[in-house]
């Protein structure tokens, strides 16, 4: 809880920075604040304290996810530091919006009451609608913001309706009470309860961008400024999947049979469609957007196979995915410069222009593709092992095939970096901070791959 307060405070501080004129120090203050928030989580470990009449529960699941959110946010601010310097206007506003959406993500990871879930999603989304359109001179950016807003509102409508129907059927917003009620009144649940569950599923599937509710994702990811895209595909995705997990694993496990078949269909679609579509993209941001949708499919596969036992696997998968994504987007951000649509040709000969960035991106892509010994492999491995143990072998075969397809489009970028001749033969200079970040991300990738136990022990 203290961590949440610290993060809220940070966003107020960053608004004050404009008036009190300490903009220069803002990124450093935010990073230190987030680190402090993460440190505060330690003292709440194993306490499971509830706040505001059980509206929020900081159990170990919530604490672990909050820690991951804080950690990835720190990496994100590090990566975005020179973006903020290059865009001096509204720097404090943007920082503040980002931190508010982190607050939303923390609420989504720790809610125990559907009202809190709604608040969390809205705090997160409203900030993002603005951020997606923050590149005011770019039509794509404005289009992205508008699309995101329309689609997001639509999804929120579903979500609210679902929450209302669930409340009508069970008389509570509290997900644990709903779980208890559905267990004890399993035979007498009204039919609109099930309609409510499906609406919740649709609303949350929008937020995690699962197929067929993913159509906004490529356009929004492609149009938004690259740093914002990086934020959406890591921090936002972690928050949304945590919310999804809490809702269905804690709130609705006893009605598993109503939603499991639909979820399985969604899982297969989310594995197959984006991975195939990504093959035909030439814009790297869109490739990464589709790949990010595809990765949701693997997480959903773990969840489908074992809704209540998958938390460790989901957590590890998200951690490895987020580190690799931040690494990929940080290089993308440096390579694109001022251009708006970055194609694979931009990466031609990157290994000659800047070996460190090329190696960093290669490791990120190998991890996303699931090649050992990188953490993406262990993530996929655990998903597959879990699914095989639960008897979902046909789904695993689908997932193995889609991850082979994934190898194809990730390797298009790798081959461009090492094999093609560069368009500009000049070296690509990067700042010391970015070099250090690339180095840290490479170390992190190896560390996650060599010590998966350290991450898994947080949540199992």
């Amino acid at each position, binding site marked *: 809880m203290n961590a949440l307060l610290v993060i809220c405070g940070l966003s107020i501080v960053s608004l004050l920075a404009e008036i009190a004129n300490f903009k220069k120090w803002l990124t450093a203050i935010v990073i230190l604040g987030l680190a402090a928030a993460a440190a505060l989580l330690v003292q709440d470990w194993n306490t499971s304290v509830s706040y505001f009449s059980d509206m929020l529960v900081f159990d170990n699941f919530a604490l672990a996810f909050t820690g991951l959110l804080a950690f990835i946010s720190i990496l994100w601010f590090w990566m975005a530091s020179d973006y903020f310097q290059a865009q001096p206007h509204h720097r404090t506003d943007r920082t503040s919006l980002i931190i508010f959406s982190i607050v939303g993500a923390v609420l989504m990871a720790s809610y125990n009451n559907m009202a809190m879930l709604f608040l969390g999603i809205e705090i997160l989304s409203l900030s993002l609608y603005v951020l997606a359109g923050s590149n005011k001179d770019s039509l794509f950016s404005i289009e992205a913001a508008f699309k995101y807003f329309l689609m997001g509102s639509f999804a929120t409508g579903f979500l609210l309706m679902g929450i209302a129907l669930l409340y009508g059927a069970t008389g509570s917003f509290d997900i644990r009470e709903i779980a208890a009620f559905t267990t004890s009144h399993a035979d007498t649940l009204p039919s609109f309860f099930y309609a409510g569950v499906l609406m919740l599923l649709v609303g949350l599937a929008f937020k995690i961008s699962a197929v067929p509710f993913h159509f906004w994702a490529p356009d929004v990811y492609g149009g938004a400024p690259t740093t914002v895209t990086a934020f959406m595909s890591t921090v936002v995705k972690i928050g949304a999947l945590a919310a999804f997990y809490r809702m269905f694993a804690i709130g609705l496990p006893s009605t598993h049979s109503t939603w499991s078949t639909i979820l399985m269909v969604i899982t297969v679609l989310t594995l197959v469609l984006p991975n195939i579509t990504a093959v035909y993209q030439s814009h790297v941001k869109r490739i990464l957007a589709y790949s990010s949708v595809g990765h949701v499919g693997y997480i959903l596969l773990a969840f489908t196979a074992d809704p209540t036992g998958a938390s460790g696997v989901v957590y590890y998968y998200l951690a490895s995915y987020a580190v690799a994504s931040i690494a990929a987007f940080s290089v993308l951000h440096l390579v694109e410069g001022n251009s708006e649509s970055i194609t694979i040709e931009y990466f031609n000969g990157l290994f000659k222009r800047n070996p460190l960035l090329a190696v960093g991106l290669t490791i990120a892509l190998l991890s996303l593709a699931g090649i050992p010994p990188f953490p993406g492999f262990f993530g996929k491995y655990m998903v597959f092992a879990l699914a095989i143990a639960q008897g979902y072998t046909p789904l695993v075969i689908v997932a193995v095939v889609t991850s082979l397809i994934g190898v*194809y489009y990730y390797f298009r970028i790798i081959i461009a970096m090492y094999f093609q001749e560069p368009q500009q033969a000049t070296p690509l200079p990067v700042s010391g901070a970015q070099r250090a970040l690339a180095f840290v991300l490479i170390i992190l990738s190896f560390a996650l791959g060599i010590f998966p136990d350290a991450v898994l022990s947080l949540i199992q």
Partner: protein
Amino acid sequence: MFITIFLLFFPLLVALLLFAFKPAQAKMLALVASIIELAVSLYLVVIFPRTDAVQFVVDVPWVRAFGLHFAVGMDGISLLLVLLTTLLVPFIILSSFSRTIEKASTFYGLILVMQMALIGVFCALDGLLFYLFWEIALIPIYFICLIWGGEDRGRITFKFFVYTLAGSLFMLVALVYLYFQTPGTHTFAMQALYEAGRALPLYEQSLIFWAMFVAFAIKMPVFPFHTWQPDTYTVAPTQGTMLLSGIMLKMGIYGVIRWLLPLVPAGVAAWGFTAVVLSVIGIIYASCIAIVQKDFKRLIAYSSVAHVGLISAGAFTLSTIGVQGAMIQMLSHGIVVFALFYIIDIISQRTKTRTLSELGGIRNVAPVLTTVFVVVMLGSVALPFTSGFVGEFLLINSVFQYHGVLGVIAGLTIILGAVYMLRTFQQSMSGETNAVTARFADLTTQEKLVLYPMVLLILVIGIYPAPLLEISEPAVASLLKIYSNLSASVK
């Protein structure tokens, strides 16, 4: 034991130093490191007790969440292949000294990472660890070929990568399946997987046999899984080709001996004959294609398919002489093919061509090179008193005892091998010198330093192979004894 850990991680450590500091003397550093590695493995051979037990074992839990142990150790079979790896790597590094290589520290670093992964494959005693090293080995060789390779390497190396990755995914599925068959809290430990595999009914053993066999067959490669190989060998830089053909293809055969034969005996009994037939088809098929090749490097690539086919056939005969023949022939083939690719590299660097018809008459201007080439060629065609003879004799003998007709067909490899190798010699070395070869310089000191030891090894192993055979014999015998007991009880 400390020594296994050292063998594994010392190359990695040096590679990390090379990546981090990019020293000007990268190649010297890499060479010194690989010589230290060779010295340690020679010391190992000296102190290695000639028993069938797995020695120098290290076993620590790595990832408790899915029962992965860092378990490594060596028996005679592993030791011979570790020796092959540590023997060839310094010479591979030395063979690159005459040319300037862009981004040298990355190049030599990747070779050393490759060495680490190969030793890991040969030492792993845990199923998942074996798989991890198996895949890790793919990454450095892929980048060596992609960055320093020849024409059209983007497409060809990608095919190579996807082909081998897809194959090994089958193996992973089989290993995970076996993992869930182990009792209690599951484990990937080798013995436990053996027992789980042997307890399965025939149908499931057959499925696992095919899943594993496809992974190994692609790596070797055995017909009809070989289509990636000639292109990749041709397009790879010389050192990459040496790593691929000299050491990496032995991963496939090692996989068969260690992770297939003892794992699913009933499956092997049911499908081993098919595997032998495929291997024998590969021998004839690849030899015939080799005969009509115009490109020197491509010709040796196909000859490699033929040789490995015979090794694979011998291993699947499940006889001591077959597996022992496979062991000694793996060593011999590694040395011979390394030397051949180096000779091709020397010729093509000087004449700027690898097309056989454009060469000729090198004998007249480079007698030392010609002599070396003759010895290596005789090793390749398995003349008595060369290393190739010991292996091929044992192998053909074992295939003959296994099935007479197949043995006769497999024996054709010697004749066909002689046809394409002698024809190669004739076209490149003898005849009149032409404009391309007229100013051909003989071997330099550095080239002699690489090739003379190889010539010596080919002769020494050919004349007195017993010390090497003794290393692996107890392990092979015990591996096959378990095997025959089990298949007897199955029947």
